[in-house]
């Protein structure tokens, strides 16, 4: 694990100085500079230093608590920053903490019986990680790795369980989070098992990501934080096939790709592929 003073922080800080507003994920982190000013001073949507004053709280499923519960929530756990590539926990590790993502994206993966790594989902702001393992009292079922600099609230197991016991709304949100996790797992299995072709599975994946990022907006655009190899892993196909299909979709003008930003221009065409 890393903290603000780690090498990861320094690396991330230099990146932030170059580009304080990272594409579609503005203000992924805030940092104390040597002068004592924060990076947040460069941007108006900066994350605050505590949960009570977080302007994004109402958008996050778990942290949108009553004032009383929020005050309590603010007092538990610690806020940590992780550099890209940092592992928050690994499959098989004892589940000692619950992690709530404030900013950034985390890759959730698991290992199959034949030793292959399988990416199950990309967790984003507001997602709670490690909750099922903590509440079921078993080792982590998955590995969580930051795919970009991220800020995560880390709460000790017992502290979190006690907090849920004190606040009905928090346990309701925890239940919703677990239920969401459950749906994600089913969704993943369904995507792999029920889409007949590699093109269909890739199309389903792009549509899922796009619609999540669009959040009801007409433009379906998102930032691809994964490599083609990793996307192939999620779609149950090869890296070469992903590259070929993305090129094909682009040639057909169903999608446009600019840098790491992907826009779905003709979602209906992709939808047809998933049938």
């Amino acid at each position, binding site marked *: 694990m890393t903290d603000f003073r780690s090498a990861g922080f320094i690396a991330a800080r230099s990146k932030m100085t170059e580009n304080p507003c990272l594409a579609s994920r503005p203000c992924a982190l805030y940092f104390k500079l040597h002068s004592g000013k924060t990076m947040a001073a460069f941007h108006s949507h900066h994350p605050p230093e505590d949960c009570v004053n977080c302007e994004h709280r109402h958008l996050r499923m778990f942290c949108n608590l009553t004032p009383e519960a929020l005050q309590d929530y603010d007092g538990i756990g610690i806020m940590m920053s992780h550099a890209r590539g940092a592992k928050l926990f690994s499959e098989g590790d004892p589940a000692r903490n619950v992690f709530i993502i404030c900013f950034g994206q985390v890759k959730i993966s698991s290992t199959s019986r034949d030793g292959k790594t399988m990416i199950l989902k990309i967790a984003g702001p507001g997602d709670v990680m490690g909750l099922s393992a903590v509440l079921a009292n078993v080792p982590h079922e998955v590995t969580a790795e930051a795919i970009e600099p991220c800020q995560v609230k880390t709460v000790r197991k017992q502290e979190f369980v006690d907090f849920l016991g004190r606040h009905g709304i928090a346990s309701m949100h925890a239940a919703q989070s*677990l239920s969401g996790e*459950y*749906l994600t797992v089913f969704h993943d299995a369904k995507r792999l098992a029920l889409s007949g072709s590699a093109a269909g599975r890739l199309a389903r994946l792009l549509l899922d990501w796009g619609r999540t990022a669009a959040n009801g907006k007409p433009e379906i655009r998102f930032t691809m934080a994964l490599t083609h190899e990793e996307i192939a892993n999620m779609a149950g196909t090869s890296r070469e096939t992903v590259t070929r299909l993305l090129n094909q979709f682009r040639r057909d003008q169903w999608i446009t790709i600019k840098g790491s930003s992907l826009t779905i221009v003709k979602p209906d065409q992709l939808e047809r592929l998933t049938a």
Partner: protein
Amino acid sequence: MQSQARSGRMEAVAPHPLAELLECPPATGNLLNGATVPIDFVAGDVLFNQSAISRGLYVVISGRLLRRTERMHAHLLLGPVRAGELVELAAVLGDGCHTYTLTAQSSGSALLLPIQALSLAFQQYPPLRMHLLEELAREVSRAYNACCMTRATKVRRHGPDALGE
């Protein structure tokens, strides 16, 4: 080695007995008992459909039921439900929509604990929610394991003609 670890993990997340999960003080127990709706089913009956709004928590008393998820003309069997199991905790505690379709394979009976009664019971006796939350966590853990199996196994895809149901 890895399969041993996985089977150990599956044992650790096995469903807990119903009596333990629904243990609560007499007043809350009476509330739940009073609200419980008995359901009898025969082979082929659909107890609920995927994506439908959940009416509550189902407790299977007897009979064989099968969980099935579908998309367009394809379906995936998610396995049987045994007597004594709580069904669709995720829907009750979460977004209120069913994750899969539950179909009867034989005659039997189940109990339905309506959502409204459960909500009242949670208010009266908060540890009940925690017990169910822990059971949901175990269910999620089991789903992760099942998902890994699905990923590792070459899945046979069925067309509408091959359903045989």
